[in-house]
């Protein structure tokens, strides 16, 4: 439609310009022609009058009277011209009445007026065009005046000229019309080509020729509500390494091959797009929930095949996140977002494929709700401290507790720390939360102390706490507040927390250690750090993760890990706590291995303070006196 209107405008423009040029040309030509004809006629007239005047002058000089000459004048008149003689006052010397027959009355002719303008000119009288010329005789005593009814008829000439001009105009306009049609076609074609190129550039990736994020966005807007779709986000894991080591040309080559493999493997797909550097997206129409995973696995397999670049075989891996529409996301926008969240989760947890679920999304709706109510929860006392006993295996006494926090939500009931700690970390509530737990744990410790119950309390720290420069002074203030000796407080940290910012973490740990607070490494064995490294930290205890302890009686590997960890830790002068003890046999085995302490459901789940006190009365592991 728009193309057509451009074309029509071009054609009309061309034709109008050609018409304008012709009209201009016509007018100028017409006027010039008139002027040339007129001047030519006047010059003829003037020379004729001069000739006649010379003859009359001669006759007057030879003694002829003016009246005789006036009578001769009709002899030289023609049907179109009249000669008259005027006296020195420019009055007609009326010598012949027939002069009046020449369409006008000569007696009324404005000789005086015409001669005041010069000796030749033209005049239109009674719709007739006349040219005139005059010549003085006998030194201005008389004037010979010639009036000529022009053969040259301006309107008639203009008509003839106009006709030719009109025909020429038609021919040229017609040619202009042709030219406009042909040129407009070419202009439109070039515009279309440019537009197509620009559109392609805007919606497609230059390197891989795949659609880009905008094009994918367009496709996502057209999803049908009655159909199921899956969006896979594929991320290549080591593109940056390849760019850094082999150069960007190799990286680009890798991307091209990966793009090709993804396009060929993910069939039938609706669209394969390149989102950014090393991120691709595949939109699928799915009939079964597992279809997306099957295709994702195929893509992973294809991508993991070596890629031959610059005579080298490069192996790359991918992480794929997947979100289903409309199951996981109600809008196309959130579909892409959630597929990306899943991909990031897969990347972080070092797995290949992750389908979307609420748990992995840091910003899902429930979490956002929790975030807003957590702040209130701390102030309104909705948090509860739970206590899980730690048993000294050598003496079979309960010597300490680990303090665990629970959230007694007014509507949702008990919420586990796994769910709200990450939120607290995200919205800067973790300091407040840790402070609350420390305060509560030390208050309880103080209460027990008054009842002659001496237990160490262990509180878990978050990674964010270790980066807080005020932590040590806060702990010190609380210990003073509740009059608890520092050695009775134990702080548990995980390996990964220390690794994220070792320098700051070490600074905080050293301060706590100097105060006399004992430090423990939680979940030992799940990270990558060696005992040798951990030994450099100011810690006194490691806790073997429940995953090893749980199956240590049946799984030889786990058994060996537990045994060797205990031996090595002891050799390094560290205490060992086994977490996740679920039966008596495990407890006995740990005792045989000379593990220092044990903790687990076999002894007790985490309990509120009053229930814990009851448990302590009835259990096999009484508190040491």
């Amino acid at each position, binding site marked *: 439609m728009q193309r057509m209107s451009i074309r029509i405008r071009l054609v009309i423009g061309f034709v109008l310009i050609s018409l304008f040029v012709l009209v201009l040309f016509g007018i100028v030509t017409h006027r010039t022609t008139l002027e040339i004809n007129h001047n030519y006629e006047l010059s003829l007239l003037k020379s004729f009058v001069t000739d006649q005047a010379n003859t009359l002058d001669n006759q007057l000089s030879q003694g002829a009277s003016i009246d005789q000459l006036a009578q001769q004048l009709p002899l030289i008149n023609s049907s179109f011209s009249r000669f008259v003689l005027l006296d020195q006052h420019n009055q007609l010397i009326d010598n012949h009445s027939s002069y009046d027959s020449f369409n006008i009355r000569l007696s009324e002719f404005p000789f005086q007026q015409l001669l005041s303008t010069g000796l030749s000119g033209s005049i239109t009288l009674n719709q007739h065009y006349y040219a005139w010329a005059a010549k003085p005789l006998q030194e201005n005593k008389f004037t010979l005046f010639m009036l000529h009814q022009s053969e040259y008829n301006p309107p008639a000439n203009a008509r*003839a000229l106009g*006709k*030719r001009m009109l*025909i020429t105009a038609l*021919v040229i306009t017609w040619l202009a019309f*042709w030219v406009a*049609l*042909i040129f407009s*076609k070419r202009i439109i*074609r070039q515009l279309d080509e440019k537009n197509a190129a620009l559109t392609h550039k805007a919606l497609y990736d230059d390197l891989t020729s795949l659609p880009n994020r905008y094009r994918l966005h367009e496709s996502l807007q057209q999803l049908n509500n009655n159909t199921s779709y899956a969006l896979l986000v594929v991320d290549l894991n080591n593109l940056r390494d390849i760019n850094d080591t082999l150069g960007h040309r190799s990286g680009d080559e890798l991307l091209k091959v990966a793009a090709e493999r993804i396009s060929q493997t993910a069939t039938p797909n609706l669209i394969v797009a390149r989102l950014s550097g090393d991120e691709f997206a595949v939109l699928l129409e799915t009939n079964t929930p597992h279809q997306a995973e099957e295709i994702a696995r195929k893509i992973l397999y294809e991508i993991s095949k070596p890629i031959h670049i610059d005579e080298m075989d490069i192996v790359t891996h991918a992480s794929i996140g997947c979100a289903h529409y409309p199951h996981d996301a109600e809008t196309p926008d959130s579909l892409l977002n959630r597929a990306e969240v899943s991909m990031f989760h897969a990347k972080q947890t070092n797995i290949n494929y992750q389908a979307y679920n609420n748990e992995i999304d840091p910003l899902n709706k429930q979490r956002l709700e929790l975030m807003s109510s957590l702040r209130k929860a701390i102030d309104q006392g909705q948090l509860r401290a739970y206590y899980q006993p730690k048993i000294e295996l050598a003496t079979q006494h309960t010597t300490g507790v680990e303090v665990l926090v629970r959230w007694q939500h007014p509507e949702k009931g008990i919420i586990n720390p796994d769910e709200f700690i990450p939120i607290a970390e995200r919205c800067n509530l973790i300091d407040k939360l840790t402070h609350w737990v420390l305060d509560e744990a030390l208050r309880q410790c103080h209460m027990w102390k008054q009842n002659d119950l001496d237990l160490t309390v262990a509180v878990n720290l978050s990674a964010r706490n270790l980066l807080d420069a005020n932590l040590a002074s806060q702990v010190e203030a609380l210990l003073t507040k509740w009059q608890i000796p520092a050695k009775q407080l134990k702080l548990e940290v995980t390996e990964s927390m220390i690794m994220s910012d070792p320098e700051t973490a070490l600074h905080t740990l050293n301060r706590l250690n100097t105060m006399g607070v004992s430090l423990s490494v939680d979940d030992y064995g799940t990270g990558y750090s060696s005992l040798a490294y951990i030994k450099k930290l100011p810690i006194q205890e490691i806790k073997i993760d429940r995953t090893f302890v749980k199956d240590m009686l049946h799984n030889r590997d786990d058994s060996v890990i537990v045994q060797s960890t205990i031996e090595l830790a002891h050799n390094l002068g560290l205490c060992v706590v086994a977490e996740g003890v679920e039966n008596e046999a495990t407890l006995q085995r740990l005792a045989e291995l000379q593990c220092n302490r044990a903790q687990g459901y076999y002894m007790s789940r985490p309990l509120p303070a009053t229930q814990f006190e009851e448990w302590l009365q009835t259990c096999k592991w009484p508190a040491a006196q």
Partner: protein
Amino acid sequence: MVKKNMCALDRAIRVLFSLVCIYFGFIDTSIINEPLLAMIIGGFGIFNFAVIFIGICPVYHLAGISTHKEIKK
């Protein structure tokens, strides 16, 4: 092979137009009264007859226009 691009009505109009051109260009030149113009108009009439005969208008072809039903969009 260039496709035909003129429909029957188009051709019929052109036949009339060509006849008028040839009449004023060669037969009664007194109306135009200018040999060069008359020759151009007459020549255009003859050229147009040839166009009608082969059914392909070169201007239509170059301008991407067609009044022929089969390829008319």
